């Protein structure tokens, strides 16, 4: 990330880089669809899909949204807070697991 003070002229990646990112995104999507077609066990599937989704999101943010080429302070202002808030939402997961066991038998 650039740290110039006098003048910033942010340099982005070229067309070949964009094309490579696009092909990587398509390849990861193909892997995801293949896993669904093979009816992969639920937990393996969820882990792989979430992992690939985070990688795809990171590629889109870094290259297409250009964040890799912005100042580090912009990233630090926006993303740690976002990730922290999203992780906080996990707090109700235990409750969701308990609900089926708490239902009275029909």
């Amino acid at each position, binding site marked *: 990330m*650039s740290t*110039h*003070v*006098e*003048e*910033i*002229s*942010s*340099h*982005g990646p070229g*067309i070949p880089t*964009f*094309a490579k990112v*696009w092909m990587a*995104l*398509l390849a990861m*999507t193909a892997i*995801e*669809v293949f*896993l*669904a*077609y093979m*009816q992969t066990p*639920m937990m393996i*599937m*969820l882990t792989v*899909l*979430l992992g*690939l*989704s985070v990688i*795809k*999101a990171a590629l*889109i*943010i870094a290259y*297409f*949204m*250009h964040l890799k080429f*912005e*100042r580090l*302070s*912009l990233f630090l*202002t*926006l*993303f740690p*807070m*976002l990730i922290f*808030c*999203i992780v906080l*939402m*996990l707090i*109700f*997961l235990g*409750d*969701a*697991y308990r*609900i*089926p066991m708490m239902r009275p038998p029909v």
Partner: protein
Amino acid sequence: MSTHVTTAATGSLWEGGRSPYLTNSKKFGMWLFIISDSLTFSAMLFAYTYSRVSNPNWPTPFHFSPSIVFSSVMTFALLTSSLTMVMAVHSMNQGNRAAAARWLLATMAAGATFVGLHLTEWMNLINHEHITAFGNEWGVPQFGGTFFAITGLHMTHVVIGLIYLGVICQAVMRGKFKAEDVEVAGLYWHFVDLVWMFVFPLVYLMSARV
């Protein structure tokens, strides 16, 4: 990209009157919107997940053909639209307004394809799987509620994006607006693509039936 921000060499960037992120205010504003909108979609995806975890008989209504095939083509359309959007920004930065307008039109075409396929997929679910926002034959109304809320909100974002890009495109063709305006529109469009990168696997692929 072509954005130039000049600041004095002395003193702290954070004392006011400067641009500490060395970016223009439109772009920073769009980033703030994107972060807040990310939390909205995160909350909805968590609501979907919790509903699923708390209902062991969660439906798996997405047959590989046509639902997964359709949604895969939709994903391809959206990913390709992101590439054409990047090309529009790239052309604009090089001062080629005609090329930028063509790439913007290509982006809108891919976005419109996405919306068309998505509506077809919705109609398939409603008419053939008998899933509505309030009920289905599995007896788990939370499925339709969360599914239509998430995908509906996402589709709304795509439609708003199409209008936004349309406004930007006609301005670019008339020689108005700067490269940074196209770049800010691009940020929004990529965000719409980014959200789909979570909706597609978590909602569609995790409920696929071969």
